[in-house]
């Protein structure tokens, strides 16, 4: 199941929620040149997931859901333009677990 919030897709696979850059977000920010992921292991809703510097803006990307961060797209730290990719396996941001399912269900459908 796939939802959209804070200009990110939220893809649910079992108990794991993957946040992925949407084309709309990619269009708005331009080519990504620098990313720094949060060092937090847990985030509240609207906490920063990563800061990125792109050709059109500097953005603090906020989490649409509270949860535990179980993985971050480390490859994007070395190769920031991965976040401009149309492929979800390249432009994903973080994976969350321990997400309140009701909160997820309340997000808009993608």
């Amino acid at each position, binding site marked *: 199941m796939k939802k959209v919030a804070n200009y990110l897709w939220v893809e649910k696979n079992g108990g794991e929620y993957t946040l992925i850059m949407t084309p*709309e*977000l990619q269009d*708005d920010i331009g080519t990504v040149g620098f990313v720094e992921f949060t060092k937090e292991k847990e985030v509240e809703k609207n906490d920063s997931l990563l*800061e990125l*510097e792109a050709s059109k*803006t*500097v953005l603090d990307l906020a989490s649409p859901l509270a949860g535990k961060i179980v993985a971050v797209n480390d490859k994007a730290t070395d190769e920031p333009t991965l976040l401009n990719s149309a492929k979800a396996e390249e432009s994903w941001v973080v994976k969350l677990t321990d997400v309140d399912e009701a909160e997820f269900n309340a997000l808009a459908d993608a």
Partner: protein
Amino acid sequence: MQQYVPKSFEDRFEMYRGLANERPAVKAGREFLDVQDAFLSEYNSKEITDFENIKDKENQIYIWQGDITTLKIEAVVNAANAEMLGCFIPNHNCIDNIIHTKAGLQLRLACATLMKKQGRKEAVGRAKITAAYNLPADYVIHTVGPIVQNNKVSSMKRDLLAKCYTSCLKTADDHNIKSIAFCSISTGVFGYPKEDAAETAVSAVKTYLAENESSIDVVFNVFDEENRKIYENILTEERS
């Protein structure tokens, strides 16, 4: 090297402003600062508007037309850029430029300290607070608005502009500031359509005040007649 110094005060001020704008964020000697502060405090003391004289009991939201650097209020909001060091373009006609010019070089140094600590550029929609140095205000709250090209305001940019207002208000409340004046963030060189921006500004401020039961007084500072009318229309429409 002999530098040509113009004759009239206005020309001399423009020369001084241009040099101050270009000056990097490096410390200055006490002697220079004393002269600068003496000059700016006298220069800035002319035509000050005291917010206490505009304030009334009925309203929490105000429109005020004028130069934000002449407003005596607790906090003024500066529309900064991602470097957040003030405008470096000599004599550039933007609010970041005039705020830094009239505050004095200490403002750039204060921003440089914050930015060094942060270690990277400032993201859109956040707020940072510094003293206001030689301005009549006590604090400057710096925020970076979204840049809009070809009048295309995406919903993300609208959200980010609203976030600028919310972040500034939150920062002000966190510092127990009771009055704040906003410039029209993003509507200058950042190209955000003025009317659209004003609607987002008003709605973000009202939502924040209601949700947080904040008692802070908010001034929408407008520079020209056109922007004043835009804000007046929005605020009267909402009242009726």
